[in-house]
């Protein structure tokens, strides 16, 4: 069995074990949940370290395992990693471990909560590892449904029911639209298999007709786009994250949400090249909506969670911009941000969850001076905010810079506006929130707050921060893995670009690539 099966399988096994634990054995329930995700995270780190030396199969995937499931439809359980998902799986497993650790804030019905959390973690890790269209969708759906239940039951605030309703509707619609697109893709590919490498191989010799591509691509774009909170389908996200219990928000905003983006890169870009090309401009304009409009909305938020939620929606814009640029640097940058933002979103939601746990409110106006009482949490929040603004040293900077270099070739004017949005708007709301929450006078009622007391409590925050810093200082760890596979995906676009008048595009891409390496080696 492939190590990937274990990475996705251990949380599920732990969830099944929990079914048989009586509900009053709280310590054991928590220990099983933490242990299940810990094993999966350790295995993911091991897999990430062994990646370079692992044998590669004919399609370019490593740690592959394939078991036929439904022969008549060509569905098989097929997992494998390449540069595109190796970072995501590592990030997902670490975030799942951190989320399980942060779940001490849940006090009621812990057993059900941990079961759902583990199913969510296992499902999404499996979806990222899956190289079969059916399982890709199936496992994501398996992870998605617990989200709704967790928000509905353990959510906080008065708007809980409304937010649950909204997020369920939005995300179900998105997932089902994407399902129609995926089924249409399967039927139109003519390969009679759900196996992604086989479909891509088949499409090389029998590309899909342009009108078919133009039909399927919007289904995938908007289906996945709703899942990723592409503007203007983003309104579920800030509110949903605002009421969600923090472990759920960590896993969803950090990991689950990347599924749609990953789907676009893994499936839509290689299989629907012409349509992607004609839609690239629209994506680029929509992502401005994410970056500018939602960033602007974030500036006006009075609630820390809503602010983080909006800022996380805004960050999705950079990833879409990277995808829309359709070149090696842009796509590499998009994958980098996906990993970086996963750690960042999880970290910020974990921290806001801690503050909520302590104070019972996230209204920024009621907070202030918290850094004095909560030095560890405060510092971590400050660092997270700086990472969110794109401060060099954190992984987000590398990703965003790479995306901008990539996008510059395709959309110079949009890139300029987006850069402005990224640097100025992000800077404004992040620093303002930090000033109002962490500095200034400390209201009397917060004198009794206590900081994360022991190493065990500090571990999830520290772990996520360290991951951000590691990939911020050594992006080579990721880019070396992403580059060859992103190159494979954009190779079809290079050919088309080459047929355009400016046929030295490939050369230019390479020169930008060198510049990017220079930045990384600084």
């Amino acid at each position, binding site marked *: 069995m492939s190590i990937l099966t274990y990475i996705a399988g251990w949380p599920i096994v732990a969830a099944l074990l929990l079914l048989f634990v009586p509900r009053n054995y709280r310590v054991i329930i928590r220990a099983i949940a933490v242990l299940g995700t810990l094993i999966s995270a350790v295995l993911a780190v091991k897999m990430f370290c062994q990646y370079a030396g692992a044998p590669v199969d004919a399609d370019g995937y490593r740690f592959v395992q394939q078991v036929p499931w439904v022969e*008549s439809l060509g569905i098989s359980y097929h997992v494998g990693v390449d540069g595109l998902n190796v970072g995501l799986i590592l990030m997902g497993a670490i975030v799942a471990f951190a989320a399980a650790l942060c779940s001490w804030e849940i006090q009621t019905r812990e057993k059900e909560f941990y079961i759902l959390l583990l199913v969510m973690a296992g499902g999404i890790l499996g979806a990222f590892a899956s190289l079969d269209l059916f399982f890709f969708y*199936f496992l994501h759906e398996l992870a998605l449904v617990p989200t709704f239940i967790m928000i509905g*039951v353990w959510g906080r605030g008065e708007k809980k029911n409304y937010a649950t309703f909204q997020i369920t509707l939005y995300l179900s*619609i998105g997932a*089902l639209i994407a399902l*129609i697109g995926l089924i249409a893709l399967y039927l139109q590919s003519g390969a009679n298999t759900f196996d992604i490498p086989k479909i891509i191989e088949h499409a090389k010799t029998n590309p899909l007709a342009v009108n078919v591509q133009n039909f399927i691509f919007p289904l995938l774009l908007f289906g996945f786009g709703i899942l990723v909170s592409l503007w203007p389908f983003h309104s579920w996200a800030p509110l949903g994250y605002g009421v969600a219990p923090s472990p759920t928000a960590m896993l969803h905003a950090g990991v689950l949400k990347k599924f749609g983006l990953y789907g676009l890169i893994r499936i839509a870009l290689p299989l629907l090249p012409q349509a992607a090309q004609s839609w690239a401009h629209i994506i680029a304009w929509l992502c401005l909506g994410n970056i500018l409009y939602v960033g602007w909305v974030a500036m006006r938020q009075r609630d820390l969670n809503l602010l983080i939620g909006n800022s996380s929606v805004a960050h999705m814009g950079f990833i879409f911009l990277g995808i829309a640029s359709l070149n090696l640097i842009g796509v590499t940058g998009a994958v980098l941000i996906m990993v970086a933002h996963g750690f960042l979103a999880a970290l910020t939601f974990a921290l806001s969850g801690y503050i909520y746990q302590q104070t019972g409110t996230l209204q920024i106006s009621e907070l202030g001076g918290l850094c004095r009482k909560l030095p560890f949490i405060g510092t971590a929040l400050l660092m997270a905010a700086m990472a969110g603004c794109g401060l060099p040293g954190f992984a987000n900077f590398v990703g965003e810079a790479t995306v901008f270099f990539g996008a510059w070739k395709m959309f110079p004017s949009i890139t300029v506006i987006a850069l402005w949005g990224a640097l100025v708007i992000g800077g404004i709301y992040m620093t303002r929130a930090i000033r109002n929450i962490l500095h200034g006078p400390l209201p009397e009622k917060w004198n009794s707050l206590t900081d994360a007391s022991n190493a065990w409590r500090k571990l999830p925050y520290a772990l996520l921060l360290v991951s951000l810093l590691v990939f911020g200082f050594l992006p080579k760890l990721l880019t070396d893995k992403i580059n060859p596979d992103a190159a494979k995906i954009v190779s079809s676009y290079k050919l088309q670009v080459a047929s355009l008048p400016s046929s030295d595009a490939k050369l230019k891409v390479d020169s930008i690539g060198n510049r990017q390496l220079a930045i990384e080696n600084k």
Partner: protein
Amino acid sequence: MLELSVIGLGLVLLLADLFVPAERRRFIGYAAIAALGVLLVTSLSGNGSCGQFGTAFGGMFVNDPLSLFFKQLFIVAAILVLFMAAEFSDKLAEGSVAEYYSLILFALAGMLFAASSNDFTMLFVSIELITITFYVLVSFQRSKLQSLEAGVKYLILGALSSSFMVFGIALIWGTTGELNFTKLAAVAPQFADSQIFLLGVLLVLVGLGFKIAAFPFQIWAPDVYQGAPTPTTAFLAIGSKAAGFVLLLRVLFTAVPSVTAQWDNLLIVISGITILYGNLCAIPQRNLKRLLGYSSIAHAGYLLLGVAALSASGQSALMYYLAGYVFTVMAGFFVITLVMRHLATEDISGLAGLNQRSPLLAATLTIAMVSLAGIPPLAGFFGKFLLLKSVIEAAQTTHNHGYYCLAFTALVGVIISLYYYFGVIRAIYWSKDPADLSPIELSSPAKLSIWACLAGIFWIGLFPNTLLNVTNLAAAALGK
């Protein structure tokens, strides 16, 4: 033959009723279950007459993979219903338990005939055998007004639809002179322009639409589902619906394929409206059986997706979905029987605290609802996936954009249904201050059948391979 054994078994039960003392009548049910189990195993092993494919009685009766699949489905459903009836027996009228069992068996015989019918006479006889036994089964709780009301409603609308169907059959016979499906298929293209012939086919579809509760013949379903004794409701939801579908498949794709090919838009519209109607009307329901009544209308709509696709993959998906539906609905009604047999109404609030009263029942009902909503990894998901796939396939091969609209309608339906299915789950786990927290005792046969349902739901959802091969084979038999 299966049919004769089942009828014989029903008669033996009636006789046994005379000899077995009243307090041991529950065991008559278990004996019947054992006998049906033997029949099921025989039919699965392919020994005896079940394995011989061919026609009999001058082409009226056909035995092929399709009929075999449906027969096994009916027998499984009947076994589960008998288990349920055994649990429910104390609510039935004094001393009439064995009658109830044998009526279920007679209805089962009708369904078995329906699965094999290859002729309009056979179709009508089997439908009447099913419907008339159901009139009695629905109004079996003679002391309960609701049950009687449901029986009368079912009788009036059922009789009306039967008369439409006979009229349709008469018109078909009058124009073509054929009643046999296979022979009719050969001559039907000549009558493609005959309005009377087309009207006849349409009227037959009206009769069958009543059986499967498709729009606009669905009005009876919620009332009857609510009023009938719960085991009857379960059998009605599965057996009667599946019998309607097997006949629909035979008529549309064996008897008049040339007409069916022209009617794709009609089927698309009916399927779409049925899905929307069922799901939208289910939203405000507070009575659990009534809610399942509306949801069964919606599911008839989903099943019609497979018919509307007009392809072997659609028919195969339909059968796959039905197989998952059997276990799911049975699991749901089993819990209703056990939890609500002592309550005056089947209001959803009666589920409050079920989580503490019996974790197994709570989990079972949750899994059933989740499967009905079509969420992985349960049976409902893979079935819906296959149905959607067949519809999109039809859209791409025929370039009829109505199919895309239908696929999106189905999606809207699925999303609406999430709301009310999750409402039930919420009532189980998270309703405030439940009135009654006494634990529910489960007899071991009840436990056995619940575990069987759960195993079926997971097996069909997780290991589709075997069943899909069977349904593909059955769908292939239809095209011949």
